């Protein structure tokens, strides 16, 4: 038996027929065909599936699609606008905040909510803020830099240097 639901995804209304057990991440990837949201684990531990539901970051493998009925969803595909990329996308690219790119969408969406709640976070606040998202490639240093860069950009502050710093 399938249930009809409607979702606003990245500003557009969508209607779906889903099984009650369908996870939101599977709906987004398989039925809405937006594959930027990834799946990295089956225990809600890795955060690769993170997206925004009504502006709040959520792990979409932990939510049933029917629970999201009527909500507004933002995925990585919805970050860039006609005006250009989102500051967080720019931050990740400019600061080498990604290697394989698999965790990146979830990491960026988590960071957006973090910066909305706390526009100028300390390094420690960023580290705790993204501790629900695993990255196996970067060692996190440059993800922290990327989020600091995006914060500065969103606040309108001077942008920090994106050059790597080496021990001399």
């Amino acid at each position: 038996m399938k249930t009809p639901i409607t979702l606003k995804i990245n500003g557009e209304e969508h209607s779906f027929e889903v099984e009650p057990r369908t996870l939101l991440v599977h709906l987004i990837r398989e039925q809405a065909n937006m594959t930027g949201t990834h799946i990295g684990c089956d225990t809600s531990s890795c955060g690769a599936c993170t997206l925004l539901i009504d502006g709040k970051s959520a792990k979409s493998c932990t939510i049933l699609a029917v629970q999201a009925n009527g909500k507004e969803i933002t995925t990585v595909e919805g970050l860039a606008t006609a005006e250009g990329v989102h500051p967080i996308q720019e931050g990740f690219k400019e600061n080498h905040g990604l290697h394989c790119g698999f965790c990146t969408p979830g990491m960026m969406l988590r960071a957006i909510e973090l910066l909305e709640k706390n526009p100028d976070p300390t390094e420690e606040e960023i580290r705790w803020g993204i501790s629900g998202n695993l990255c196996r490639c970067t060692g996190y240093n440059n993800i922290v830099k990327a989020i600091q860069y995006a914060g500065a950009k969103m606040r309108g502050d001077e942008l920090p240097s994106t050059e790597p710093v080496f021990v001399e």
Partner: protein
Amino acid sequence: MIQCKTSKEIGGMGHSMKRKEDDRFVHGKGNYVDDVKLPGMLYMDIVRSPYAYAKIKNIDASAALEIPGVVAVVTGKDLEQYNLHWMPTLMSDTQMVLPTDTVMYQSQEVAAVIATEKYIARDGREAVKVEYEPMKALVDPYKALDEDAPLLRPDKEDQKDNHIWHWEAGQKEETDKIFENAEVTVKEQMHIPRIHVSSIETCGCVADYNKVDNHLTMYMTTQAPHAIRTVIALVAGHVGLTEEKIRVIAPDIGGGFGGKVPVYPGYVIAIAVSFLVGKPVKWIEDRSENLQADSFARDYHITAEMAGTKDGKILATRMKVLADHGYTDASANPSKFPTGMFSIGTGSYDYPNAFMEADAVYTNKPPGGVAYRCSFRVTEAVHAIERITDRYALEIDKDPAQVRMDNFIKKEQFPYQSPTGWEYDSGDYHAGLELAMRTVDYDGLRKEQAEKRKKGELMGIGLSTFTEIVGAGPSKDFDILGIKMFDSAEIRVHPTGKAIARFGTKSQGQGHETTYAQIIAEELGIPAKDIQVEEGDTDTAPYGLGTYASRSTPTAGAAAAMAARKLRDKAKKIAAYLLEVSEDDLEWEPGKFFVKGAPEKSKTIQEIVFASYTNHPQGMEAGFEATHYYDPPNLTFPSGAYICIVDIDTDTFEIKVRRFVAIDDAGHIINPMVAQGQVHGGLTQGIAPAMYEELIYDEDGNILNGTLMDYLVPTAVESPSWETGHTVTPSPHHPIGAKGIGESPTVGAPPAIANAIVDALKPYGITHLDIPITPYKIFKALKEKGVLDKPIAE
């Protein structure tokens, strides 16, 4: 230190150019295997064994087959009809694709369910009833070698016990003699535990067999697409699926670290099913399956010994290793030396005698030791040598930094012949350690530590001064299933001066699209932004052995430079023709040839390329293309000097990494930003096994931490803020003097952290702790030493 010969616009070597590949990733436009969706595609799920060792009495698929949407259930007996129930491993052992009678480890594949939808396949999996007769599992590798241990592999005709192979290197008699007579000898038993690569993307594939054309397209998570194509052809050739009919596509890969080198049964079953039903079949494993059944790493039990003088001269080392390979020997190693680079076990130190030996054993654990972000056991070897060097320093009561300085191979000794038979190409170990010590103010830290010790505080300073071996490898020493380990590059420059370059390697996040373009930009002067790099499609890329063992820059990077040089030779001929001068009258600067003494008379590389299609000399082949297959003359030998400072809470024994400075020498650096990113990532994958990660099994072979809920991958909170730097000793035999860097930090970090923690506990008589070193292990060790009944301040 890092100098650029080219302008920023050209973007050759040394520029921290932003990565070309990032745009698609930050827009969610990456194309990973699970994103592939083909018309009519079926989904596969796998039934796995709850037991580590059991007879399969019966598999009843009837309930599963009644579920609408379940298309088929495949068992080992089904595959047996086509002789597809077994497959070769990378080490020429054999592995069941699906077992016909006995399961050999927990979570082994037992049957596959194929359905029209993902969820239905999972329903089908739950409905398959398997009747098992459990048997007593063999979990302890030492007990597996007991004379009366049950034989785990009766399927192998020559196998009389559970011993797989013996390997040795060095001088046994001389080394034993030195140990008998030495003033000081030290010995520690170490276990480098079983861990997992845990790339955030799990493994999977879409097998798409086209019956009409007899053609297989295989989208898969693989680090070595060409080698996999050959393996598929070797296994499936007898059913007519020959190599030219197979296309392996490795699209974007979400991290590999060695775990995506092996062939897993799921891939083979998907191919078999697609072949039988004529439809595309997708198999994507979940995280539990990935952790529980995919190739583990490490699991080496090592007895390490060092002999030396009282005043600090190392005279010899001995290492004896027992490698737990689980159900089958599927370890990723060049087949000429089964314990791979344990040859590097003598470290960065100069002494003439050493003896290394290793034995491998079967147990009821998952198979396939992969060289997780390391070259074929370098990590284990470096851990052993760096720990035993500290143990020796402790024994003679000398500072571990001083012992290292006194015993390093000196820079004028390169090329250096190691006692286990390798020729180290270049290095300056003193410079690296000096820079690391200066950065942390080493002497100041030792004073601070002495003060803290008086107050009973636990502070430790740990060093690791390692030499790595990467760039597998020279064909005289390296092959996988007989295929020699060269790598390749093909460059085609189009008439308007823009290029496409294709490689036999496969990035899993290392940034090849940018760095390879920078190498070609360096050699030809064509801007890196005008060079599109492609990998991972066997129909278009030249044959190569793939990306692992930090081999992409040392092999395919060299191939790119060599192919570009072939083009530059051609460009020179065309320039001479266009400028109407002799080739000897021309000089090159990145991007153009000009006439000596008359720089205004010049031709840009773009003009030359255009002429190669429109106005080339009579008799010259048209076009501007070159291919090179690079067989390295030797390995490259990156090195590093790492210093870690830890503070340990005296109540909770929580370990805090206060600082970690990593000085790497990888020769010439192509893109410093990318190289630093590799070091950051590798260091976090180094702290992981040192303090958090271990695959734990109980005595029945049950895995106790088979999900990310309890297998502790470090988050941003556990990962420190890393400090990195370089010394530059170019490799003398590499075309661009590069050595590779991707795995140095994974190799170098664990012993630095372990040495720091053991150093913190030095006042309490603790000489060694096995990684991962947890607060509980420290607590237990102190308790055993009897120091915890009293205030620790004493």
